[in-house]
């Protein structure tokens, strides 16, 4: 290279780099400004509402929805506490996280008058322990843990004891979730799933150790895959995963664990500091519509609280809700759960 060209390169490179950086930094802001229409910021679980439903809402109400996702309640909490208030309008926390958000004064009360479609919700789903008056939250979808097993290979699995059967060696998949699995083992040992007593936790570990040789994997992302590829014959999974797996392999059966199981209810809430509470209510009201609820469960077969959506018969539902229990916020005792989980593994 000639000295002069070299000089030009030396001068130009940093300038070009700076320009690129400037463009990257300032570009999104400009595109925001172009958008004068109303925007709603939604933060939801990954794979929970089909994209078309959001797009149709945008078209119908002539608004823009900024839709982002999280994959655990803790991630949601971290996103909320690390961002400015008003960054998000509508989020979908589960039971214990609703409780936690209420206790930290992070939620905006719902205005039921603006949610006429809330009458579509079945009575049994209202007034849950984490928000007894439904002042801040309305139920969106219910998940329960269930056993899933291949009936062509296994007679029946109805109790956690059945998972200890030596014939199931290296043949189980369990959710990779410390509160759910420790909770299940507490249930199996005759305790309540949110029990924090050290002896009871120890007993749960003992029970678990007899299941351990049978466990092939812990997976929360897609345990159904293990069944579809016939990697395992039994496991403890979320109900929607079970339904989807059964669609693929009709030999599979699901059953509620006798000793008790986990419930997880996700809820619509509006965050305090939301700049679009009006639109947020419209969005929730839209999602509460019969046809929308139906389409959501068609894609993700959890239990919808909507009256018109075909799900469990009333009696079974009441039984499920009374036998299952929610994960509760255990405060500082979460440390003992965490340490125990390290021992489980």
């Amino acid at each position, binding site marked *: 290279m000639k000295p002069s060209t070299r000089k030009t390169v*030396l001068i130009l*490179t*940093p300038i070009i*780099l700076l320009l690129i950086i400037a463009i990257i930094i300032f570009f999104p802001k400009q595109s925001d400004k172009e958008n004068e229409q109303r925007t709603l910021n939604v933060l939801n679980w990954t794979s929970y509402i089909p994209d078309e439903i959001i797009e149709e809402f945008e078209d119908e109400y002539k608004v823009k929805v900024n839709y982002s996702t999280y994959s*655990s309640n*803790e*991630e949601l*909490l*971290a996103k909320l*506490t690390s961002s400015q208030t008003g960054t998000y309008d509508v989020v979908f926390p589960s039971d214990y996280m609703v409780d*936690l958000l209420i206790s*930290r004064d992070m939620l905006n009360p719902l205005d039921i008058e603006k949610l006429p479609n809330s009458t579509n919700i079945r009575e049994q789903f209202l007034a849950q322990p984490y928000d007894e008056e439904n002042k801040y939250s309305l139920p969106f979808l219910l998940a329960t843990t269930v056993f899933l097993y291949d009936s062509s290979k296994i007679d029946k699995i109805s109790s956690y004891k059945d998972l200890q059967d030596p014939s199931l060696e*290296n043949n189980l998949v369990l959710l*990779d*979730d*410390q509160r759910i699995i420790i909770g299940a083992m507490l249930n199996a040992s005759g305790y309540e799933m949110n029990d924090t007593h050290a002896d009871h936790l120890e007993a749960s570990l003992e029970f678990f150790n007899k299941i351990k040789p049978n*466990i*092939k*994997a*812990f*997976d929360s992302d897609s345990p159904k895959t293990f069944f579809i*590829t*016939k*990697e395992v014959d039994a496991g403890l999974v979320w109900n929607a995963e079970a339904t989807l797996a059964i669609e693929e392999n009709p030999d599979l059966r699901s059953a509620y664990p006798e000793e008790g199981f986990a419930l997880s209810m996700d809820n619509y809430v509006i965050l305090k500091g939301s700049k679009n509470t009006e639109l947020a209510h419209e969005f929730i009201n839209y999602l509460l519509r019969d046809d929308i609820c139906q389409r959501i469960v068609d894609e993700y077969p959890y239990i919808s609280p909507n009256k018109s959506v075909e799900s469990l018969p009333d009696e079974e539902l009441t039984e499920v809700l009374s036998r299952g229990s929610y994960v509760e916020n255990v*405060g*500082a005792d*979460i*440390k003992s*759960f*965490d*340490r125990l*989980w*390290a*021992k489980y*593994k």
Partner: protein
Amino acid sequence: MKKKSEKYSLFKAVFTLPVIIYSILLILVPLAFVFFLSFMKSDNYGGYLLEFNLENYGEVLDSTYLLIFLKSILIGLATTFICLLISYPFAIFLRGKTERQRNLIMKLVMVPFLTNSLIRTYGLITLLRKNGVINSGLLATGLISEPLNLMYNNIGILIGMVYTLLPFMILPVCSAVSKVDQNLLDAAEDLGAGKISKIFRVYLPLTIQGAFNGSLMVFIPAIGFFFIADILGGGKAMIIGNLIKNQFLTARNWPLGAAFSIVLLGLTFVLVKLYRKIGGDLDELGGG
């Protein structure tokens, strides 16, 4: 003359300033915050309370967690050892090739690593699972009668780790081996050294730095790559990486997570110090 060098130092400043700012803002400041956080108390909601205490470090010493550290170190050591075992014969094989062949082979080693490692790890599942490619192949040829358990155990973790980290070993080892003087090898042969004895008595002593350099770059990530342990180990094996991740994402105990990170950092620091001690060049580490 003087003027010119001043001008060049200005250029230097223009070029290095962004890097310095970048390092301070995105590496030093967060690191300082992690260090600070590790002495705070958790508020159980993912935040922290401004109370100085050493409790987090006390908790790190809990036998449950120490076992996880031990297990991670064992997995890291095993991975490093297997990588070394593969890299040396490969490097010596490569030494005997022409430059064109060498370039082509090195490209073949590097190309897969342009793909995201998470995707490659998922790719391994299709090979390793019970009715995956390897098992169906072996069953069809009648070599085995029962599918092998190649994943959802420690074997799976090791396969994944070695596969992902091998290039970090191959690069420094190959570069060190290629620099060994042919005269020394000829001399060794004249004095009656066989293939094996050449490896242990000529190559190894002359390339120990390259080997240590590679070992460092394999070992350190291996104790932290939680996604490989999660995906190929079936989430059954907890290593330091998972442990730290759990503190931030499930246990909502950021200070404890920070303390684990600092301990891990300390471990890394000790290893790098050791590397310097045997005469390693820090620039070579950064180059990988």
